[in-house]
């Protein structure tokens, strides 16, 4: 399977380790021919988010030829995956575009649903209790876990994968899937509210005795870690692939 690895801009610049761990993790699977899509830039999420559909269109048009050749496009980011799957609609919906939208996966979904990973033979260890933060896009738009609002059977794909890591004990904040307030451009336009939401979230972890927080959306963690440090809370934040690939230690 020819896999295109897409690195979202914020991960490239601010937390490259998330991409490094994900890239190396994908490379572990011999059946995959993994290529970093180096020329692909932003997924246009900030523009769609702000309502600039026309401008998002230019970006999307540029991306199509870069993404279309792959059997699967894998991203280390739930929110950008949702952008492709749910909102890549400023361009004409050609067969190529439809192919892209249907074959874009967040890495957690890709491991869980496409590769159907049941164990991690490289035996990663993370002997600690971790709070799992399912980012809102991963949770409610990609349905990688049951949002607490929906009365459907429980499932949590990220927790399933973390369960394969030796010593890793998964828990949740009390308000387990309340938004932490990142919201992309929201955290800049409405910093007071985003900050309060973030503070409530990191205080929730601290109250529950967590020292480690893991998520499949590093965008949320970027926000949460910034708020935690500003408020002097002793919490460490990890992108999920860092733990799955055995790159992070508590």
């Amino acid at each position: 399977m020819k896999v295109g690895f897409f690195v979202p801009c914020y991960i490239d610049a601010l937390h490259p380790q998330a991409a490094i761990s994900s890239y190396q993790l994908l490379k572990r699977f011999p059946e995959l021919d993994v290529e970093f899509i180096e020329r692909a830039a932003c997924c246009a999420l900030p523009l769609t988010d702000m309502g600039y559909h026309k401008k998002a269109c230019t970006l999307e048009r540029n991306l199509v030829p870069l993404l279309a050749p792959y059997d699967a496009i894998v991203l280390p980011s739930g929110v950008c995956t949702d952008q492709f799957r749910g909102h890549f609609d400023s361009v004409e919906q050609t067969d190529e575009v439809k192919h892209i939208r249907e074959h874009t996966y967040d890495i957690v979904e890709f491991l869980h649903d496409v590769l159907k990973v049941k164990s991690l033979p490289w035996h990663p260890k993370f002997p600690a209790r971790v709070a799992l933060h399912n980012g809102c896009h991963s949770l409610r738009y990609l349905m990688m876990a049951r949002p607490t609002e929906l009365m459907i059977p429980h499932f949590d794909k990220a927790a399933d994968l973390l369960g394969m890591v030796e010593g890793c004990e998964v828990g949740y904040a009390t308000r387990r899937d309340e938004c932490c307030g990142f919201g992309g451009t929201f955290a800049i336009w409405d910093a007071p509210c985003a900050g309060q939401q973030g503070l409530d979230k990191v205080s929730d972890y601290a109250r529950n005795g967590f020292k480690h927080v893991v998520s499949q959306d590093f965008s949320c963690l970027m926000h949460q870690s910034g708020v935690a440090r500003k408020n002097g809370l002793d919490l460490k934040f990890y992108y999920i692939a860092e733990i799955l690939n055995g790159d992070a230690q508590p």
Partner: protein
Amino acid sequence: MSQVNQVKNGARFIKDIPHRESHDRCLWNARMRRDQTAQAIPEWEEMRDLASQIKEHTLSHLDHYLEEFEKNATANGIHIHWAETPEEHNEIIYQLLKQHNVTTATTGKSMTMDECDLRGYVEKRGMYIHEADLGECIQQLDNQMPDHIVVPAIHKLRQDVATLFAKKLGSDPDITDPHYLNGVMRAYMRKKYEKIEAGLCGVNFAIAETGGICVCSNEGDVDISQVVPPLLIASMGIEKVIPTLQGVALYVRLLSRSALGLDITQYTTHIHHPQPGQEMHIVILDNGRSKRLGSPDYWQVLKCIRCGACMNTCPVFRRTSGLSYEAVYMGPIGCVLMPSYDLHRYARLPYSCTHCGSCGDVCPVKVPIPELIFYWRGVDVDKHQSEKVHDAEETAAELMLRSSKTLAMGENMALWGLRNLPQWLLDSGLNPWADVHANPEPPKETFREYYRRNYKKIEFMNKTTDLHGFLSLNL
């Protein structure tokens, strides 16, 4: 009117810790109770689908069902009036009150009347309508808009209510027990009920098949207003009609559970005729609804049954208060409804949203609120309703994000800034992020740099076919 700045309004409420914490806690608890009660019903998600489908069916045959309702209600002895605008709605009701020489009128909570500012309209003409719902009455006495469509005074602490009642109703300012305050209200309203000449109410469901209305309430004020006075006036939007009486069961099972986590409201009342000797009127309001119905991107908003579940779950609403929206409909549904009433005034509301999607998941009739938020942001941009600064910023962003090369340049500039600029500058007002965040630790290299250092050459050696691609990215 000037554009509402929900962010600024909300920031003030966020700083008021006791009020904000109480608001957040009360409404989050309502959301938790909703989860608990919904969890006990195996068909919950199926019911949401059905409730949504019935609404879609009704809206796509709205002319038919409104005619059927009108015919049956008229046969039941109810007078039906039609209003295109709030002014028409208010004038119809004002004239009715005047013809009946009404001096004392009470009203149970009605969103449609709030939407039209009926109270304000009749007050200007020397008439006073008493809000009979406790929360609405508190807000009326305080001369303030409701904070929430179901619990209008939930942003107030008990001390606030005690102070207000002491000033307006002469109660003891030092007794803040909600039971006492409720008693003060009860005594105050009882005096009104003894001489009430007209009662007003809203409508939760208008039943086409039987020509009756269903109203769900807790306090008894609505029912008293309906059956005691010789004149009853109900007000409803055109979207309130549903086809059958049996259908009410489905909505009643969803409504209060979604709103407050209660299995039902204390009073689930159906009025099909006026009481003997009573005159009954229903005013059916359009106020833009028929136009919304014609918008393929937007008509689904008309499914809303005004339960307030989206407000309870909204992380922004709970922390910033409903008052910060300066609107009749607040929270998520307000963000997507209000711009259709006044695009300029409410252009910024669709941005008061983190896109967490929770509102869509709790909505008992599946109004696609998150999608409608995107819709309005697009409309806002197309019509240039919002601040011009967006344009400059987003053009810059678009230029930067357009290709991997310009993006790398932008990223490098940002990283250079993080690594080299003095802390005071990074924390200044130029960087709103820094108000609430410590800035991130800049990494030593980006992923692209890492990739080039470690993998690029090897992969290139293995794949000489993509020569063109390799050349173009080094341009």
